[in-house]
């Protein structure tokens, strides 16, 4: 749903320009240094990128799903590392509190998430718990007016820089399923919250993950999201569709960028007496990538509109995430191929993007998990 076409276009125009003039020129530098420079981070905060999905009443933009998807597509046209730093604040980092949090929790944290003053992380995955998230082992045991958290969380995006963590932990040890899990808001300087060393990732350099270890970490009882036990997992599930569509939109943006780079290269590079873009086999690579990224764009926008209308888009969001993340992998592979030997070299952005996009098929639910969700929903609806 687009509420006001003119304002949205202005927003997208401004963002497109910011991406082109500020972010794209520093992509390479960010990758080499494995760090987003402070001035760019400040500009991203000033732009309002940390509060895209946060309601205006709390200082954000309150974008609808369709609007957010269009914004994410623009952001996708540069290194995904930039998006990573504000991704959580727009996703589970704020949405969990917004959907199920108490008013006091909202007032305390959401405005600072919207400005980016606080960067947030979401802690679900553990060393022995990934796709089967409902079986997580981190415990939170009530002790007076606190909960005591123990356990290790793995691959936590923004772990090194976050000031606020949404942590999923088991409050009911007797309930081994999802119903025993609660969600906690944990401030970054809480004693007993220990950050591991940053992981050495394949791509998306500049974005960081690390282990977050809870060692008798005492969290005030009022920090349980929603004010009661056992609803945490459901809270996380409510945010899934939004996150999946957001990631899908980023995949579409990256695919469009890769295709633009590949087309540009193919029109310049001459072999056998003409630009390689004029060889039919290269045209096939270009055309397939164009058709697929367009399909992805249409899927994202259709699912986003339906979500805005209040339709349950669980199946559609999984279809979209599955298709778009796999699609951008194929587009990246073709972009490297079109570049020939140059595509294997770090001077060309396609080499970096080829590694960056590999992640999209793994987090926010692996491709296999999306397939399971889709098929199970289909069967359930047919029963």
């Amino acid at each position: 749903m687009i509420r006001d076409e003119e304002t949205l276009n202005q927003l997208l125009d401004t963002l497109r320009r910011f991406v082109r003039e500020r972010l794209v020129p520093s992509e390479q530098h960010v990758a080499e240094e494995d760090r987003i420079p402070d001035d760019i981070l400040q500009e991203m905060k000033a732009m309002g990128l940390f509060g895209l999905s946060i309601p205006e009443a709390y200082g954000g933009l309150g974008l609808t799903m369709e609007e957010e998807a269009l914004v994410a597509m623009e952001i996708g046209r540069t290194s995904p590392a930039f998006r990573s730093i504000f991704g959580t604040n727009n996703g589970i980092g704020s949405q969990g509190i917004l959907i199920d949090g108490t008013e006091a929790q909202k007032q305390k944290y959401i405005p600072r998430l919207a400005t980016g003053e606080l960067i947030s992380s979401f802690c679900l995955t553990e060393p022995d718990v990934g796709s089967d998230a409902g079986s997580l082992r981190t415990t939170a045991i009530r002790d007076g007016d606190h909960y005591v958290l123990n356990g290790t969380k793995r691959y936590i995006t923004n772990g090194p820089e976050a000031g606020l963590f949404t942590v999923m932990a088991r409050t009911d040890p007797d309930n081994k399923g999802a119903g025993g899990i609660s969600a906690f808001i944990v401030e970054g300087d809480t004693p007993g919250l220990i950050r591991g060393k940053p992981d050495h990732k394949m791509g998306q350099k500049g974005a960081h993950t690390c282990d977050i270890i809870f060692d008798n970490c005492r969290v005030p009882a009022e920090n349980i999201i929603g004010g009661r036990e056992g609803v945490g997992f459901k809270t996380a599930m409510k945010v899934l569709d939004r996150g999946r569509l957001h990631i899908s939109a980023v995949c579409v943006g990256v695919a469009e960028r890769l295709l633009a780079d590949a087309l540009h290269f193919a029109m310049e590079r001459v072999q056998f007496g003409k630009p390689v873009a004029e060889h039919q086999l290269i045209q096939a690579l270009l055309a397939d990538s164009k058709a697929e990224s367009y399909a992805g764009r249409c899927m994202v926008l259709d699912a986003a509109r339906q979500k805005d209308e209040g339709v349950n888009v669980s199946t559609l969001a999984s279809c979209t995430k599955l298709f778009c993340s796999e699609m951008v992998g194929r587009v990246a592979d073709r972009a490297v191929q079109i570049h020939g030997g140059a595509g294997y070299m770090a001077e060309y952005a396609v080499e970096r993007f080829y590694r960056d996009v590999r992640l999209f098929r793994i987090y926010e639910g692996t491709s296999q998990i999306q397939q399971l969700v889709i098929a199970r929903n289909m069967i359930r609806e047919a029963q």
Partner: protein
Amino acid sequence: MKVLVAVKRVIDYNVKVRVKPDNTGVDLANVKMAMNPFCEIAVEEAVRLKEKGVATEIVVVSIGPKAAQEQIRTALALGADRGIHIETDEEVQSLQAAKLLKAVVDKEEPKLVILGKQSIDTDNNQTGQMLAALAGMPQGTFASEVVVDGDKVNVTREVDGGLVTVQLNLPAVVTTDLRLNEPRYASLPNIMKAKKKPLDTQSPADLGVDLTPRLTTLKVEAPQTRKAGIKVGSVEELVDKLKNEAKVI
């Protein structure tokens, strides 16, 4: 102090401009439009003056079709307080623009008027000068620095030989050059808030200005495509070619 800033809607600087097949003008169908870059610098300068506490109100004015309101909204998002849109679908030449702006100046009585030195569509570089003449105000064109000092403004100008600084009595007209400042990006929340700032629409007739063009465009042609250059073997050869072939020295 009230500052009036004029902004123009032009073809976006990233667009590859194409001449219409019948050579009557530039093809504007479905072409992306944006605020003239020199006008962006003008808005930025006004906003900085406001941030310094020198300016108290920034009024932004644009002449053009209904869609020019987009550029006014952009200026409002950047920090201007209110907008005036002089709506017309007619071609507006520099003198007519200057007359319209003069009418706005008479009404608003700003202390400082900031314009771009030229717009990247027609590159006329004369609206600011004409406005200053019509309004009887001093002018500081091609500004690379603007310092308001009491009831005066010191304008450092970029001229062929270097820099020259002039002192003008306020009210005055300033036109911006590229190096005056680096315009900021509007923040996304401010873009949303700009929607709520006042924007007043007027017609050229309301302001008593006749838009009949003084100039007639006979023909618009694309510049000749550049021919490939050549490499010369020595300085002597270069000098010889410049003298005898190009005949420029």
